């Protein structure tokens, strides 16, 4: 369906009643959605591979154990190797889960994240970097493509949180918690969805790209202010990791909601573009 046809359909008020099928996601939105899904999978796994080479994070410019916020380690205690995770000075035993884990070759080794979570599986910093630096481009190209196409189509307006949505955030959360019978009236996306998409598109994605670039000595020489505003190179690494944790949190919430609000309808709509309206679903900003 062409852009003009979608607009015409909307103008005629088509697809605003439950059970009706509307064309919701453009080709650009669907393509970039799956590009992000793939890029995030590859970037997280290859990022953990890279992280394993120096499994600690400091809130500083140069490495500084006195400013360590997270560290994974392994040591021998009473003849047994144990893996530990240290967060803000608190140490937890995490043997076989974190710190001392599956090496991808049938054994256990002193590695922060296990082989199943990393790309490649076995310890391989060089190829982890190759994967990471390729799919960083996939993430950036998808982000720019999506923002340009959505801005031109006008669909960005449906998705961005506005001041008028803020009072609806709490009622929407109460509805999700089943403490309220009906959601507040809203357009294509509800206020909590808008908040999540706005944070991901305009904060987390840009932050994870910028903090990643700040780790590059070449970028650091060309734009030293970038690393400086982030608190230094090791701090940039800490922010980069934090943004990843938040994006994983977003992803898990996203999956939970996709499944709980109609996994088939939601997934199909992100493949074909066509979405079957449910009760309370709106269309528009």
């Amino acid at each position, binding site marked *: 369906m062409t852009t003009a046809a979608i607009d015409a359909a909307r103008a005629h008020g088509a697809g605003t009643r439950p059970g009706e099928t509307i064309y919701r996601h453009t080709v650009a939105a669907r393509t970039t959605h799956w590009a992000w899904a793939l890029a995030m999978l590859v970037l997280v796994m290859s990022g953990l591979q890279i992280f394993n080479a120096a499994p600690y994070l400091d809130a500083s410019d140069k490495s500084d154990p006195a400013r360590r916020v997270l560290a994974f380690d392994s040591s021998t205690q009473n003849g047994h190797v144990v893996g530990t995770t240290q967060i803000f000075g608190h140490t937890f035993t995490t043997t076989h889960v974190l710190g001392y884990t599956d090496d991808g070759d049938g054994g256990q080794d002193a590695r922060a994240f296990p082989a199943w979570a990393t790309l*490649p599986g076995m310890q391989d910093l060089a190829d982890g970097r190759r994967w990471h630096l390729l799919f960083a481009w996939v993430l950036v190209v998808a982000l720019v493509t999506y923002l340009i196409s959505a801005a031109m189509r006008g669909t960005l307006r449906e998705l961005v949180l506005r001041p008028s949505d803020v009072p609806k955030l709490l009622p929407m959360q109460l509805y999700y918690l089943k403490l309220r019978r009906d959601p507040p009236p809203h357009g294509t996306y509800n206020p909590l969805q808008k908040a999540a998409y706005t944070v991901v598109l305009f904060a987390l994605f840009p932050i994870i790209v910028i903090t990643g670039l700040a780790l590059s000595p070449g970028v650091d020489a*060309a*734009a030293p202010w970038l690393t400086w505003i982030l608190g230094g190179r090791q701090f940039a690494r800490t922010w980069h990791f934090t943004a990843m944790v938040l994006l994983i949190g977003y992803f898990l919430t996203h999956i939970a909601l996709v499944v709980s609000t109609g996994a088939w309808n939601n997934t199909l709509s992100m493949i074909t573009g066509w979405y079957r309206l449910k009760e309370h679903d709106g269309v528009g900003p």
Partner: protein
Amino acid sequence: MNRRLFVATSLSALGLTACGPVKESLTMGPFRGVLLSTEKLNHEVIGTHGMAREYADADVDLEFRVNGLDTPADSTYTGLVRNTFRDYKLRVDGLVDRPQSLSLAALRAAAPRTQITRHDCVEGWSAIGKWRGVPLATVLAMAQPKLNARYCVFHCYDVDESGTRYYESLDLHEAAHPQTLLALDLNDKPLDPDHGAPVRLKIPTQLGYKSAKWVNRIELVADFAPIGGGAGGYWEDQGYEWYAGI
């Protein structure tokens, strides 16, 4: 937990566990060409521009972390250490008009440069050191590279357990950068053997593995493919990027 969500999560976990062989074959298979192609793009986009940040004396790591291969233990190198590098000569040859053989005294006599810069290791850690030495550009100017020279190859004294010798290379643009240094001193003392004595490269605009230690010869070449494994350096031959600005 929602039953469908539980099933979906379990299936994904199972998928991730089973995909070990898939990950290895994607990394080493036909897709490898695509994986390697990003390096050219990053080199084009980021390149070597501007100056690495220079720090104050107070920022220096007095115990600078030792990295890289083991300190050379062969008789050639230990012999040099024994007579405090009096017999050491840095050779500069290959595609040059005036091949050089420079003693430490000659290197120290050249206009020195001191820089306090951060060393960023490919593993992720950083350390700050005060480096003093001769800009590589100064030494190249003495040797006068020929017009067809494109790269400096740094041959080193260190070898790994399998006998493979360390080497590195830079293009002449990176070599001419004012902060690309042939370092002789670290933190106001002559380099000790563990830190690459008597001469090491220090290039703060790229990751640490480019800063070759124990340099004994700089060879100017048109192409580094015939040297070592052909990728331009010891770590590059093992899959690391030749352009290490990111």
